[in-house]
């Protein structure tokens, strides 16, 4: 066999070998060994193929971030704090929910990270804060920086929350909306939402009775903010001897000094604040006495008085030498969550899960889909084989045709393994589309080459092959055009389908289908010579 003449077949063989390497060679998987946790399903099965959620099981949460952003502003570095303050006051939101981001893609930006911000009031607030509120472009959503920070925090929360192998990314829809997509294998959506459904902003608030003109009123003051807690050393959630779960915390020196000073100033170390009954939050939340609240996202999850021993240490300054204390919770679950929140930090804003999608699939169902989809594909291929054999009644034509169609799918699988594409059901639909267009094209090649009688010379063959290729090429370009809108502006559901179809058609037109022409020529010339 002349290799030069059959270079298309040689190329196909090379591609098949490469696909085999990508599918089965241990080193070919992009992160096999190095980091198994980053791709779910990578460890299972004999191949390097990765499976997406629909075929591996797990949870996916896809949601936009809550917030409203004003862009195209010009803000001086030094005025950030005052702008946050003014905008927050004008809109009645806490300063922590207003952030100023400089040098975004669209000038400087101010974002308000709460729901239902009226555009009109936002503009007025910006003007009040001394920026050009009328010229700002206001949209819902947050800046890219905040989005990135959210993705990082969620990743940290998932990894620290004991859910391994999670992947977090942002996705842009065709309509310009940005979504955060959280994929966690081997977890149900309740577990994931518990971990990331809220911002997880933790603070310690001191509440105390104060004598005023009209009797006793309660005053709250935050003594440890989330940020201060983040800089501390957070211990492992555990259960104490009295059965009370807690998280041990060691503050940094500076934070400890402020903290103890605040407690002394607020009277928490005085004798009436440290007694057994100093905090009566559980019995009478309206009149709790001296309490330290553990507050998560504005909700009091635990309340306790200052321990007398600790109060003494704080009073004497002993506390500063070993500034550790414990944050108690009601349940071990809560302690666990508190620990994650403290370690990973608060999310800049909330995921608007109610505006997104939630998906959960048991692993067993994913496994079932895997072999059922494989079987469905196989049966479809058999149906194709049946009709091709009936049409040609010549195994010399039909067998290589079916082998070529199978090779196309094999190369595609190799491609998927090589780039670490996680397979989903829509990809399987894509494989089927590829077999469909593939067999169509092979039929065109076979008929074109065989129908016009004997192939006398290589030139006649080349001529016919070129004619067939015109049709195939035109059909391929049409398919690619039909799929490209989905491949480029998709929300992801049909993106895989579109990409697989496009890549499959390219592999088919450039590699496998021309090779089939060569195979056919060899077989037919052999036959003619007999």
């Amino acid at each position, binding site marked *: 066999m002349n290799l030069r003449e059959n270079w298309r077949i040689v190329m196909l063989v090379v591609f098949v070998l490469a696909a085999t390497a990508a599918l089965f060679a241990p080193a070919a998987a992009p992160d096999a060994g190095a980091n198994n946790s980053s791709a779910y399903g990578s460890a299972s099965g004999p191949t390097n193929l990765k499976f997406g959620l629909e075929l591996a099981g797990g949870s996916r949460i896809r949601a936009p971030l809550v917030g409203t952003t004003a862009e195209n502003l010009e803000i001086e570095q030094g005025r950030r704090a005052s702008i946050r303050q003014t905008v927050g006051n004008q809109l009645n939101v806490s300063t922590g929910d207003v952030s100023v981001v400089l040098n975004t893609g669209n000038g400087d930006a101010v974002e308000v990270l709460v729901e239902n911000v009226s555009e009109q009031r936002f503009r007025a607030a910006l003007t009040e804060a001394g920026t050009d509120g009328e010229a700002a472009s206001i949209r819902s959503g947050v800046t890219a920086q905040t989005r990135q920070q959210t993705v990082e925090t969620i990743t940290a929360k998932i990894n620290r929350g004991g859910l391994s192998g999670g992947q977090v990314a942002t996705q842009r829809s065709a309509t310009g909306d940005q979504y955060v997509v959280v994929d966690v294998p081997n977890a149900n959506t309740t577990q994931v939402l518990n971990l990331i459904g809220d911002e997880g902003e933790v603070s310690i608030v001191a509440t105390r009775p104060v004598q005023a003109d009209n009797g006793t009123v309660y005053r709250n003051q935050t003594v440890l903010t989330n940020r201060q807690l983040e800089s501390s050393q957070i211990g492992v959630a555990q259960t104490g001897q009295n059965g009370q779960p807690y998280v041990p915390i060691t503050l940094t020196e500076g934070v400890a000094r402020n903290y103890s000073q605040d407690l002394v100033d607020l009277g928490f170390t005085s004798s009436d604040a440290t007694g057994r009954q100093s905090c009566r939050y559980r019995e009478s939340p309206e009149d709790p006495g001296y309490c330290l609240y553990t507050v998560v996202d504005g909700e009091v999850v635990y309340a306790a008085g200052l321990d007398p021993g600790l109060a003494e240490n704080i009073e004497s300054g002993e506390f500063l030498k070993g500034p550790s204390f414990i944050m108690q919770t009601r349940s071990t679950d809560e302690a666990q969550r508190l620990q994650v929140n403290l370690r990973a930090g608060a999310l800049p804003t909330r995921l608007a899960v109610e505006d997104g999608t939630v998906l959960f699939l048991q692993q067993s169902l994913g496994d079932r889909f895997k072999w059922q989809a494989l079987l469905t594909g196989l049966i479809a291929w058999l149906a194709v084989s049946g009709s091709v054999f009936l049409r040609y009644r010549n195994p010399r034509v039909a067998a290589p045709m079916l082998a070529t169609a199978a090779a196309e799918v094999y190369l595609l699988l190799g491609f998927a393994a090589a780039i670490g594409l996680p397979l989903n059901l829509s990809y399987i639909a894509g494989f089927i589309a590829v077999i469909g267009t593939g067999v169509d094209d092979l039929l065109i090649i076979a008929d074109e080459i065989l129908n016009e009688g004997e192939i006398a010379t290589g030139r006649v063959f080349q001529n016919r092959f070129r004619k067939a290729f015109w*049709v195939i090429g035109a059909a391929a370009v049409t398919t690619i055009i*039909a799929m490209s809108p989905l491949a480029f502006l998709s929300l992801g559901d049909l993106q895989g389908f579109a990409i697989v179809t496009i890549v499959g058609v390219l592999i088919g037109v450039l590699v496998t289908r021309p090779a089939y022409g060569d195979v056919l020529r060899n077989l037919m010339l052999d036959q003619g010579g007999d």
Partner: protein
Amino acid sequence: MVEFVVPEPDYDRYSNRQLAAVPLAVLALALLVLAGWTLVNGVPVTPGIEFTGGTEVQIATDAPQSEVRQSLDFAESVQPIAGSNEFIVTTQSTDNEAVRSGVQSAGYEIVSIQSRSASFGADAQRLALIGIGVAFVGMSILIFALFRSFVPSVAVVASAFSDIVIPLALMNIFQIKLSLGSVAALLMLIGYSVDSDILLNNHILRRRGDFYESTYRAMQTGVTMTLTSISAMSVMWVVSRLFGIPLLPDLAIVLVFGLVADLMNTYMMNLSLLRWYKFEGVSR
């Protein structure tokens, strides 16, 4: 053994008008169905929960269907999966946690659950429409660029249009909702249907030889192509439906509709336009 020989139709017996009348009548009927559906329901095709928002739960239980339906009062539909003790329950509610707890308190095991908010669904619907629209326009431009003459190009584009409209009408008749699978199928139809049309145009316009001889040659290949795809998709529809795999049954059945429509459109409508063009249109 079954013979698989593409029959040679006696095109001589029919005028162009007669040939085109059937596919045009079917197309008109399909458009009528879509128009009527729009009048009654406000949309040409009923969108599924992927586009309206809602929740789909797959549950495992030994209880019979009637009991499941009764115990889950929020359920809009309860469909059993053949050969298993599982059901697919859909509801318009987008509150994943509420549906989850509702199903769990009824004592069923959740195999999978998926919910989409209405706004997300609306986005996906807009995207699907844009996708199909852009794909169709792109295909049309390409066809005009390839053939560079009006009538043959219009023949291909019209046939592709009808290949999409007829399955849409059939979806209404068979109560198939618009889903990601059927959108994928409609996009695939744009590619598939053009295959056989290009083949026919190519044989008739770019080859020497008698019109009917060229037509028959193109038909031999083209009809085999379409029948092969139809057989594969029918089998896939049956199997994937039995297994209860999502996405694939919708995709398969819409493709079967479209490919059958394509047989008619290519070899009656497209052909009659080409014959007119070849024998009468060119000489004018």
